[in-house]
């Protein structure tokens, strides 16, 4: 018979808590911790994914320094991240503001705007993008109607990257939902009081909404940076990393080295460099925004 007291109100054993979290710990150990440590160890080996790995020290990391393909992939990934993330935050915030209005049937709009995020960059979406952006597609017709020269979407590195950015921008649903929830948490009294003092809606946005969204903005920023740095599926399916490796991200490099070239040791080493790169960027973001986030609290 278990004792019931203030410290143990339901009379459970001291190990019950541990048992309850065991499924999570087991899942974490098998699916996160094990791959995490083993990928670091594999990065120190020469391994083709088939035969036993052979220890090679820092050889893979030294190889990376002289690998122009790796340098190109890092450049492409950083460029992609710094172009996509601000745009995505702006679009998702703007949409969240629109969907925050109390109008009839707004629930339907909120659902509809989230649909692209559920679709992701699957094959059907890729085929749709192909119809939109290949010659004679809708994009060309629209630019033609606007009297502009047709854009070589698939044929030029910069426009191909922009096409991928558009695909990811289209999937703004997750960031938008986070903004929307935060917007609904801002008390209406703030706006009412501001209105009484003669504050317009633009001023209210910059003086009330934006400051109160600071922490959520930071959360979205970090989540989007991490997702963009790990980008793989959109360029893999849309452009294959081309043209001229202009959309060849670090994620694609890891995949190719691992599965196409049977260079698993190198692929794991690159994964760790990507991990360090993402950690560094997130650390910088924390450091840069530290003061303003503390002020929010």
């Amino acid at each position: 018979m278990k004792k019931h007291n203030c410290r143990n109100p339901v009379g459970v054993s001291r190990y019950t808590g541990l048992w309850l979290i065991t499924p999570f710990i087991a899942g974490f150990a098998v699916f996160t911790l094990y791959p995490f440590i083993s990928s670091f160890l594999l990065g120190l080996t020469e391994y083709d994914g088939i035969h036993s790995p052979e220890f090679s020290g820092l050889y893979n990391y030294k190889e990376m320094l002289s690998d122009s393909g790796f340098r190109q992939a890092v450049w492409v990934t950083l460029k992609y991240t710094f172009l996509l993330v601000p745009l995505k935050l702006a679009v998702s915030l703007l949409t969240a503001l629109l969907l925050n209005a109390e109008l009839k049937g707004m629930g339907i709009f909120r659902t509809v705007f989230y649909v692209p995020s559920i679709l992701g960059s699957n094959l059907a979406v890729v085929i749709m993008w192909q119809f939109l952006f290949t010659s004679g597609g809708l994009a060309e017709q629209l630019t033609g109607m606007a009297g502009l020269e047709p854009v070589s979407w698939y044929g030029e590195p910069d426009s191909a990257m922009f096409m991928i950015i558009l695909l990811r921008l289209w999937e703004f649903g997750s960031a938008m939902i986070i903004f929307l929830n935060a917007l609904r948490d801002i008390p209406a009294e703030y706006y009412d009081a501001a209105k009484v003092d003669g504050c317009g809606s633009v001023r209210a946005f910059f003086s009330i909404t934006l400051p109160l969204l600071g922490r959520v903005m930071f959360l979205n920023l970090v989540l989007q940076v991490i997702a963009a740095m790990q980008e793989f599926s959109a360029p893999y399916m849309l452009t294959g990393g081309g043209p001229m490796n202009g959309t060849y991200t670090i994620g694609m490099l890891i995949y190719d080295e691992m599965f196409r070239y049977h260079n698993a040791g190198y692929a794991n080493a690159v994964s760790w460099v990507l991990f360090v790169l993402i950690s560094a960027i997130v650390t910088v973001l924390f450091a840069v925004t530290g003061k303003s986030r503390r002020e929010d609290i």
Partner: protein
Amino acid sequence: MNKLFLSLAAAGCITALSACGSSSSAVTAPDGKLDKCTLRFSWWGGDDRHEATLEALKLWEKKHPDITIVPEYGGWDGWSEKISSQISGDTAPDIMQINYDWLVSFSPDGDGFYDLSRLTDQLDLSAFDEDVLDFGRMNGKLNAVTVSVSGRGFFYNSEVFRRFGASYPETWDELFALGKTMGENGVYPIDLDIQSGGTAWYLAVVYVQQTTGRQFIDMEGRLGFTEEDVRTALDFYKRLEDEHVIRTVKTRSDEDGNAALYQSSKFIGGNVAGVLEWGSSVGKYELALDKGVLEAGAMLKGENGESGGWMIKPSVLYAVSKDTSYPDEAAAFMNFMLNDAECAKILGTTRGIPASKYAEETLEANGLLEGLAHDNDEMLNELDTVTISPYMEMTRMKEFYNSAIEKVSYGETDTETVAHELYSQMSRYLEKVAK
């Protein structure tokens, strides 16, 4: 505590990693019996191959109700990556259709696949010539059996040629002349992809092999081309683009996106009037057009009648996973797919002209030895062909070719510089991987 935990975790990972690589697992010995079991069989291909193979599996189940075959199939893109992860994870299908270069990639020492010479109780190898069986030998062990031997050839949209009143080219000069004639109407006589197929470099290699008599890479993985030959190949490719024989890489990307050529609206709509394709895989192009529209054209020759340089290889091979628990049953199924008369009739030439004499004789006796694969095979048989080195087909090598072709096509730099870079890359890589 933290230190202890990390040490334990690291020790666990190291123990698990030391078991990485499947070479250590025991190979199941044949027992000479056919037990009740379920086997997985994987292949890639176009719809024609899928439909015929699924039909053949129905026949197998009728003949062997105790041995169920689970099919795993799809298109070529991404297939080698899928198999690669299955093999490294010890989850490879029991019987696999494999590509020629996979023998070098997955089984350089001959231990990557089951040694089929141990399974001759179930697998009849008497239908195969010894030199055909040699294609599947690694380090003296029979790792795979060749399903068919095939080469790339030209296949043309006969309706487009009829519209232009043109006949299929027989020499390189005639091909370039067609580029001019058809180009005036925005039509390309052929097109070559630089995707996973890598046909652009293939054709350039054929041209240089024909003109120089040197083989690009020999069977041991030694580079036979000089840097000058590589440059000639790249110049030849550039000329194809410049003279409107093929689309530039940029035009192809703009028009097709990332789609394969047989799915391209330009091919289906007749703006691209021909393709260079394996006889064993041309079915998917044939299906994209109306029946009978695609026809085989001649293997191109030099102006003085030089006809060498064209290449052949085992188009596909069958292998048994070394991790299978049912080697006898897998061998029996492989035997059915390779030699069974009724199965041969169903499969036809969807994997090329069968290398098995039994299957070939069945097709001939039933009037099924016809079609594009057969026409292509006949033309190649008349030539002094070169056997492709498996090293030429390796994925990393294809990446080198495609990257060089792309640089030449975009005019990023001159062919001399690209040739130098490509030659150095290939030399270094071959030195690393060749025997």
